């Protein structure tokens, strides 16, 4: 059987459709278009094929590449290990140098060994332990004084009775002992060593409880044997103290509700009363300072006697310009208000006070002065400044007990442990975040920051208790925070399917329709051609 005359064109539905659409009835006989040459047909299939190849091998990879979200490889497991406290068990070794020049070398060694045993027996918290070390003899005073890693030095001197006193000017504990209390060389314990151990323990008790509280509020928590009263005090300290920042901005403000005073000797007062303190805090924090005077400032509470509730709303937050937002450092406010208000205590009669501290914010001091005085002298500022200084230490989280040098060195140790935990925590948050939000982009500098943070964390963890720990912990925390708060890791992460369709359809619809239709037609034609060939073969056979 011969194929119908319009055979070749029938396969090409497009041209046949065009033919049927033409005003055919007008013409007496349907004038079929000339049959397509096989080369034209082949060329058409090549065109369709090449379009498809282009789309599949160029278009699709291009689309895939440009729409995938870049996610840098993060060491997620390592980060989570840090967060869970598995990577580092924070332990603060405290080096204590023992100066016992009045004893024989052997005796002194024995004494130190015994005292160390006594301390180990007393200590039940592994995160913070004291290590005694016999300091070199006084013959070479330079080295013995300059060991930067010893937190405290003990000076043993013979005396009448066993006494202990903290040196107010240095991190040193002076212990006197009666001559007969030195343990003989082969004794297992003695009164003196027990005494030294208990003294040391009580000296470091606050630091130890703070550290154990810090560690227990992290996931590594072990039931720390702290009494509820101690926990409450620690809780209070935590709410009072500001978050660690390398730099704080101090704002000294003079507020008055009238036209006077207009000037104050703040410059000399700061130099005289604040500067020494700021200098000692220098290794831990930097400070920037500004001052202001505000006249006709109405406090939030008008009454003459202020109750405790009034104090909370005394600061007129709506009108007083108290947040200068200068630079990037958090502000601590020290406010002197000229007024003769008094603070009333409901429970204790007759007691008065001039100042109060607002946790994590600063201090207010009520300074009463005659109205006519238009100048506040340096001497009048003495008491406020001293109060501010004391409160500054509290706001920075300094422990309350012990001599100042000791308090400061424990502050630096506490802060390094604190920063270490914070940095590990930030790493953990970032790891969990990148797992829970698979569509968030993670740029490469985040991975760099994480790597740097982990490196410094390792160093800080290894050197905890030494002076470098704070430096490393600070960098680790900074880097971890910067990685978490990376600016480009933002954007709308969730797109409903309707949105995707709405974006892609107008673009891809017109492109895909001819592509798909062309493919379908080509396939149809191929199938038909094959059928025809089979038919022809059959016909041939039957002939």
């Amino acid at each position, binding site marked *: 059987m011969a194929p119908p005359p319009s055979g070749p064109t029938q396969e090409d539905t497009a041209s046949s459709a065009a033919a049927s659409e033409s005003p055919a009835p007008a013409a007496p006989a349907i004038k079929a278009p000339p049959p397509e040459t096989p080369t034209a047909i082949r060329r058409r299939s090549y065109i369709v094929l090449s379009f498809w190849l282009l789309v599949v091998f160029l278009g699709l990879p291009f689309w895939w590449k440009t729409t995938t979200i870049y996610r840098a490889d993060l060491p997620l497991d390592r980060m989570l290990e840090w967060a869970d406290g598995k990577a580092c068990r924070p332990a603060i070794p405290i080096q204590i140098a023992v100066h016992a020049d009045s004893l024989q070398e052997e005796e002194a060694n024995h004494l130190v060994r015994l005292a160390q045993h006594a301390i180990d027996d007393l200590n039940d918290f592994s995160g913070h332990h004291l290590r005694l070390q016999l300091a070199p003899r006084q013959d070479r005073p330079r080295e013995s004084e300059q060991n930067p890693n010893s937190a405290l030095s003990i000076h043993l001197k013979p005396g009448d009775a066993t006494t202990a006193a903290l040196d107010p000017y240095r991190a040193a504990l002076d212990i006197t002992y009666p001559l007969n209390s030195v343990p003989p060389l082969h004794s297992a314990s003695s009164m003196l060593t027990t005494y030294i151990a208990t003294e040391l323990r009580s000296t470091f008790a606050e630091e130890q409880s703070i550290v154990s509280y810090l560690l227990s509020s992290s996931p590594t928590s072990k039931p720390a044997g702290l009494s*509820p009263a101690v926990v409450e005090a620690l809780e209070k300290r935590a709410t009072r103290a500001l978050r660690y920042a390398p730099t704080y901005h101090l704002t000294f403000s003079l507020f008055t509700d009238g036209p006077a005073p207009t000037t104050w000797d703040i410059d000399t007062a700061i130099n005289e009363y604040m500067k020494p303190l700021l200098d000692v805090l220098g*290794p831990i924090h930097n400070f920037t300072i500004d001052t202001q005077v505000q006249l006709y400032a109405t406090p939030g509470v008008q009454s003459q006697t202020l109750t405790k509730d009034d*104090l909370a709303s005394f600061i007129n937050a709506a009108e007083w310009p108290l947040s200068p937002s200068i630079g990037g450092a958090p502000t601590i406010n020290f406010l002197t208000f000229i007024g003769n208000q008094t603070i009333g205590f409901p429970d204790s009669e007759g007691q008065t006070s001039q100042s109060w501290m607002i946790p994590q914010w600063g201090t207010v001091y009520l300074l009463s002065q005659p109205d006519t005085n238009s100048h506040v002298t340096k001497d009048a500022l003495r008491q406020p400044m001293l109060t501010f200084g004391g409160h500054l230490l509290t706001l920075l989280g300094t422990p309350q007990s012990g001599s100042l040098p000791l308090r400061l060195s424990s502050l630096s140790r506490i802060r390094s442990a604190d920063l270490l935990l914070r940095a590990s925590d930030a790493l953990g948050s970032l790891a969990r975040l990148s797992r829970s939000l698979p569509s968030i982009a993670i740029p490469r500098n985040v991975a760099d920051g994480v790597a740097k943070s982990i490196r410094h964390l390792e160093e800080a963890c290894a050197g905890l208790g030494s002076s470098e720990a704070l430096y490393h912990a600070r960098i680790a925390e900074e880097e971890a925070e910067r990685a978490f708060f990376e600016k480009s890791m933002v954007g709308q992460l969730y797109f409903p399917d309707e949105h995707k369709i709405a974006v892609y359809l107008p673009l891809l619809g017109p492109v895909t329709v001819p592509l798909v239709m062309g493919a379908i037609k080509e396939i149809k034609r191929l199938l038909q051609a094959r059928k025809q060939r089979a038919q022809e073969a059959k016909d041939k056979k039957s002939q």
Partner: protein
Amino acid sequence: MLFPIRLLAVLATSLFLPLASAEHTNNWAVLVGTSRFWFNYRHLSNVLSMYRTVKRLGIPDSQIILMLPDDMACNPRNAFPGTVYSNSNRAMDLYGDNIEVDYRGYEVTVENFIRLLTDRVGDEMPRSKRLLTDDKSNILIYMTGHGGNEFLKFQDAEEIGAWDLADAFQQMWEKKRYHEILFMIDTCQANTMFSRLYSPNIIATGSSELDQSSYSHHADNDVGVAVIDRYTYYNLEFLENQVKDLSSQKTVGDLFDSYDISKIHSNPGMRYDLFPGGADVARSRLITDFFGNIQNVEVDQKENGALEEELLELGRTIAMLRQKEADELNQYNNATSVPASQPTEPVKHIRGATALTEDNWWTKKVVGATALAGCVGLWALGSFLET
């Protein structure tokens, strides 16, 4: 038998007491209006009324983030220039002379809002425009605008989805950026906006259910448009009349109970299930925990004076000693230990044009040179063929 149990109970309470007393130390408010144009006057006045309220209750401007997409006070169609009123009696000018708008005009975008919540901002962002909260901060988040099922429109240009909001809150929680959140939203189908939240410690409330509109309260004929929405109006009514100052003991539950469907004309929704302890604990939170700024002050006792004198003396002596020590140390050896806070050294500035980033400098040079050489080659080829 009774005794040990009682003992146990006492022990248990003493153990859990510190946890229960964990409290917030600062309050923040994020107040967001999302619509532009004069006929949306009421959304701006909603936000400004809320702003007045939190300010009245003691949250300082530095802890309020106010987002206003349009300036109604300076709109040419405003018959009362320089003012915004939320009531036709025009008793209180909300605009006043002491208002601090943090994000305004085209700065109010979905991206900026999410950046604000997650604090993913650049170094150039001033502190006053950042939400510097920590794990002890309570945050009030109030939003108003035009919304729909699980979205809220920003300025007729884009929208924030309920999922995005939920993810932002989760990121905040993950980074310990809040203690508790009160999320309040006044828009059409508002309750759908908090349906996707999944982070703990959030109380959420909204003005209307799915397929319900949120209506305006009344119009001012002289202003010419509606001046406030119903839901916000009745919230404010409660806050103005019942929460006079910081000592108010009214709770969040009292506020929610005051909602009257016949007045609001839509069904306000609340969500407590994210709050540990559920509805009871959430409802017992004080209004001032979110709208006010409670500070637990510590008053000094008189006898501390002597102690501080001592402190000062100590400080001075120590400074002197340090100085001496440092001098001696410098003389002996110049061994440097790493200081905790390194003084910022003056950086040498290179004058003239400098690249912003130094990375890939050579690669870029090479690429540029190749491109240039290619162009020259093409030109040479072209002119060769032409001749």
